[in-house]
C-alpha cells in the first residue's frame, strides 16, 4: 500500500512539473506567480502522501506550514507595483 502512495507522489511531482512549464512560458507575471502557487499546492500534496507512505505524521506539519505560507508570496506579489513608479 505504501508503494501506491509513493507512486501517487511521483505523479504529483509530474503535475508540478507541468505547472512549471506554464511558469516558464508566462506570458504575464500573474501566470508565473500562479504557477509557483500551483507548484506549492502540489508539493503540499506530495508531503501529505509521503507522510502516509512512510507512516510519519510529522510530515503533515510540513504540509501545514506549506499551506499556511502558500499565500504569502502571492500576497507580496500583488501588492508589488500596482502603480509603477508610485511606490517608494
Amino acid at each position, binding site marked *: 500500500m505504501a*508503494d501506491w502512495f*509513493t*507512486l501517487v*507522489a*511521483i505523479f504529483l*511531482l*509530474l503535475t*508540478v*512539473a507541468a505547472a*512549471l512549464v506554464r*511558469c*516558464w512560458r*508566462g506570458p504575464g*507575471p500573474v501566470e*508565473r*506567480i500562479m*504557477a*509557483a502557487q500551483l*507548484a*506549492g499546492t502540489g*508539493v503540499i500534496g*506530495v*508531503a501529505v502522501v*509521503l*507522510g502516509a507512505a*512512510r507512516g*510519519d505524521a*510529522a*510530515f503533515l*506539519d*510540513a504540509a*501545514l*506550514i*506549506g499551506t*499556511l*505560507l502558500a*499565500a*504569502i*508570496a502571492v*500576497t*507580496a*506579489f*500583488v*501588492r*508589488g*507595483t*500596482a*502603480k*509603477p*513608479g*508610485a*511606490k*517608494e
Partner: protein
Amino acid sequence: MTFAFDLILCLMILGTAAIALFVRDALAAIAFFIAFGNLMGLAWLGLDAVNVALAEIAIGAGVTGVLLILARARLLALGDAATSTGSPLLLRLGALAACAGFVVLLAAAVLSIPPESGLDRVVAPLMPGLGIENRVTGVLLAFRAYDTLLESFVLLGALVAVWSLAPAGAWPGRPADPGMADAPMRRVAGTFGQLLLPVALVMAAYLVWAGSDLPGGAFQAGTVLAGGLLVAGMGGTIGLPSSDQPLLRAALVLGPVVFLAIGLAGVAAGGLLVYPAGLAKALIVTIEYTLFLSIGVTLALLVAGPPMPGASDPDPEGKG
C-alpha cells in the same frame, strides 16, 4: 519505487534551480526559486530530515520568496528590471569548464564518503539526560548550544545591519509600508491576515512545544511567525513598528539575551551553557519560546527592510 521518487525529485530540483538562475525575466526567476525551495523541502522529507524540511519550506518557499519579490518590486519601481544580462562568451566558456571540472571533483569526493549517521550513535545515549526526544533539538540547544547562541546574535546583527542602511532623515522610523495600494486587494489581504496571524501564532507555539520530542523547534516556529506577521503587515492588519520603539527592541533582544543569561547561569552548575541535572528540559523550552518570538519578529523586519522616509503612518501597535 522510493528511489524513483528521489531521482525524479532530484532532477526537478536541478531543473528548477537552473531555470531560476538563467531565465531572463526576474519574476520568472523568483517564481522558480520559490518552487525550488518547495522541492528542497520535499528533498529533506525524502531524507527523513523533517526538522530541516519544516525550516526549508517555511524559509525557502515562504520568507525568502517574499523577500525577493519585494526587492524586485522596489527595483522595478526604480526602472531596474533585474533581468539577467549575458556576459562575454569567453568568460562563460571558461566558467563552464571550471565549474564542470569542479563539480566532477566535488562529486567524486562526495561519492568517496559513505553516507552514514555516525554521530547519531554519539547523540542517542546522551538524550535521556536532557529529557527530550528530538535529537536535532538536542544538538541545537544542548550539545551545540554555543553555535545556536552565537547564531541568534547573527540574526539580530543582520537586522542591525539592515537598519544601518536607513537613508538620511529616516531614522528612527518605519520600513516602507508593505501594504497594498489597491483598496479591494487590501480588504481581501486584510481579512486573510486577520485570520492567518493568530493561526500562525498557534502553529508556531505548537512547533516549539512539539519540538522537544517531535520535529519542530524555535527556528522553524520563528519562521512561521514571521510569515504570519508579514501577511498581516501586507494586509494592513498590523502596522510596522518604528525602529526605536522600546517594546520592539525588547522583543528583538529577548530571545538572545535569555539564551545568553541561561548560558552564563550555567557557570554556577559547572560552566558555560551547562544545564543542571533535571532542569535541562525546562531551560531548553524557556530558551526556545523566547527565541522563537525574537526570531519571528527579527525575520519579519529583515524582510521589511530599512526604515524609509515618508513611511510614517500612525500605528502605535508594535509588532512584539
